[in-house]
């Protein structure tokens, strides 16, 4: 994985000291909250329901065990013994003290991490496929391109004050495991008819108040023009994005209002201009970055498993993913134990994961946007030992991509923007379906829960989505069906009037019953919904 050079390190260290001084001035009273707020937000420090919250960037979700241990130490030393992995492949701490914040940033810097650009109207952490560099179906490892874009977008002077926050995703397979088309810019690395590798650009996707699927604006950009094309996309947005209305300020609104064709025309014009200016980093820089992502030293070994232990076999079937080397798999550690809080991990659990990554996965981990942790390169020969260790640590839940593996945002338990709680719903649904054995019958079913319209819980993209709303001071929940953030991307549709907390749990039970009654063959919930439409579900819910 990428290692900081002296420039990266110097930039991050300088930022820590700058923030230390800003925090000191705030505590002494020479900076007002109004003056300090944008400064702390630039360093990922929010003020949430119970305390300050610090969001730490995990670039494209990749980290090593030394970094994971540092995250665990921060949880134990400065927080309350845990952290929350987010749908942006980052981690958040919920109980931070302002007086500790600069020390935490310094601890992060020592392991080449930071919280810069995890808030504010700038380009946020670049996201990617959590199986990048390991997946059997990828064209190339997308992370060097994500890293190039990370370097380009870090402290980019022109894009520090965009109309609104900006999220970029890079993948390199037909299968979309990163919700690529629901980003402001989604980039897919593709091969063209001439056999050349380049980047396909989708622009103007997003969730939130006005969910949109990004249209493709260019099918092929040469890789030595990748940054230039991204810059052109941003420039047009920065120039014409709506700064007058926060709710219309995301690029998706601009692309929608101009029309994809006109937006593309303007981008192409800007692109032609930028090609003359020459903003692309030298090719040597990309080659330098690529070296950091070279494959580890894979070795041939056993390709089959002893599946005689049914619990182990179930975990293998559910929680592992085919690797590009046939003696390896990628193993996913579910952070969704039945009744647990999706995405939360204690300091001790983080240390266990770090130690197992070091032992079994070339010292690498990935955070998924579904709030789990991947050990990308595990020898098939080591899988049983890994599973045994995970199981002993309470990290062996065999439920990936099932209804128990839901996304849930922090909701009203932690988030000051929330209308309703998300986590208790997640807990009750997983307990109910886990206890009844229905999880297995349902197979792949993606449930996603957001506590407000900002949609951090990706409810628009859930096969079943739940959105918390405030109904005269009382929590209420809208149910939606039919979303997908994969390559068959679609936006979920609301079923009808909302439900109480108990009511929405019953409603989930009801729609899954309809699916079980109506499914044909191997259909997933989503397939059945797409075949039979909303009506049968509505009838069961409201008649």
């Amino acid at each position: 994985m990428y290692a900081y050079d002296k420039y990266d390190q110097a930039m991050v260290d300088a930022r820590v000291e700058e923030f230390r001084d800003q925090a000191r001035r705030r505590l002494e009273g020479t900076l007002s909250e109004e003056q300090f707020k944008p400064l702390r937000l630039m360093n990922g420090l929010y003020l949430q329901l119970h305390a300050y919250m610090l969001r730490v960037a995990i670039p494209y979700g990749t980290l090593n065990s030394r970094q994971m241990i540092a995250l665990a130490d921060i949880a134990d030393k400065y927080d309350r013994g845990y952290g929350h992995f987010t749908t942006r492949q980052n981690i958040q701490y919920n109980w931070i003290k302002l007086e500790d914040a600069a020390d935490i940033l310094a601890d992060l810097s020592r392991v080449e991490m930071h919280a810069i650009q995890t808030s504010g109207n700038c380009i946020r952490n670049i996201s990617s496929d959590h199986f990048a560099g390991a997946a059997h179906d990828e064209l190339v490892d997308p992370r060097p391109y994500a890293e190039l874009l990370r370097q380009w977008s870090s402290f980019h002077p022109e894009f520090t004050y965009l109309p609104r926050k900006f999220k970029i995703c890079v993948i390199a397979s037909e299968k979309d495991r990163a919700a690529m088309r629901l980003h402001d810019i989604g980039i897919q690395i593709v091969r063209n008819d001439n056999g050349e590798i380049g980047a396909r650009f989708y622009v103007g996707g997003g969730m939130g108040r006005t969910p949109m699927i990004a249209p493709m604006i260019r099918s092929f950009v040469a890789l030595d023009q990748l940054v230039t094309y991204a810059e052109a996309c941003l420039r047009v947005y920065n120039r014409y994005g709506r700064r007058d209305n926060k709710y219309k300020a995301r690029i998706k609104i601009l692309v929608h209002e101009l029309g994809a064709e006109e937006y593309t025309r303007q981008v192409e014009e800007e692109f032609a201009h930028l090609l003359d200016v020459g903003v692309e980093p030298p090719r040597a820089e990309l080659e330098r970055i690529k070296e950091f992502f070279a494959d580890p030293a894979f070795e041939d070994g056993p390709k089959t498993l002893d599946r005689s232990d049914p619990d182990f076999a179930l975990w293998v079937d559910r929680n592992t993913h085919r690797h590009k080397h046939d003696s390896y798999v990628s193993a996913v550690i579910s952070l969704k134990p039945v009744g647990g809080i999706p995405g939360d991990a204690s300091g001790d659990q983080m240390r266990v994961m770090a130690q197992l990554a070091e032992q079994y996965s070339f010292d690498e981990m990935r955070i998924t946007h579904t709030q789990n942790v991947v050990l990308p390169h595990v020898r098939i020969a080591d899988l049983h030992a890994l599973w045994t260790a995970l199981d002993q640590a309470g990290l062996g839940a065999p439920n990936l991509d099932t209804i128990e593996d839901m996304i849930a945002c922090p909701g009203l338990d932690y988030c000051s923007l929330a209308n309703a709680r998300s986590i208790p719903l997640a807990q009750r649904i997983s307990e109910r379906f886990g206890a009844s054995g229905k999880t297995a019958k349902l197979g792949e079913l993606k449930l996603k829960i957001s506590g407000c319209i900002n949609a951090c819980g990706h409810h628009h993209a859930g096969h079943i989505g739940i959105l918390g709303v405030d109904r005269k001071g009382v929590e209420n929940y809208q149910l939606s069906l039919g979303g997908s953030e994969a390559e068959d991307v679609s936006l979920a549709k609301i079923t009808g009037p909302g439900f109480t907390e108990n009511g929405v749990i019953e409603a989930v039970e009801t729609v899954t019953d309809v699916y079980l009654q109506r499914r044909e063959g191997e259909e997933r919930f989503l397939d059945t919904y797409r075949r039979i439409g909303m009506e049968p579900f509505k009838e069961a819910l409201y008649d």
Partner: protein
Amino acid sequence: MKILTGNDLKSGAVIWWDGENWSLHVDDATDVGTHGEEIMAREEALRQVNVPYMIDAERTDDGVRPSHIKDRVRALGPTVRPDLTLKPQDPQALDWVI
């Protein structure tokens, strides 16, 4: 009743105006009547509180209860981590929030 809340500048902890000082416990909150703005301006200038605001609440047999669920969650702590709330030993505390 009208009560004042905000966060402690240094720790970020949720605090409530008790008439003389800031308390961690919502039950200590006092009715500020029409003096809320003035108290908030003074206390914020003294850095005794960060981002203060005034809310509606009622005094019940169980103490002071903010009208909105968000402030009740703030008053107690996350409902999904009773061990981290101000009343970890009280199983009824969550009912009070909801």
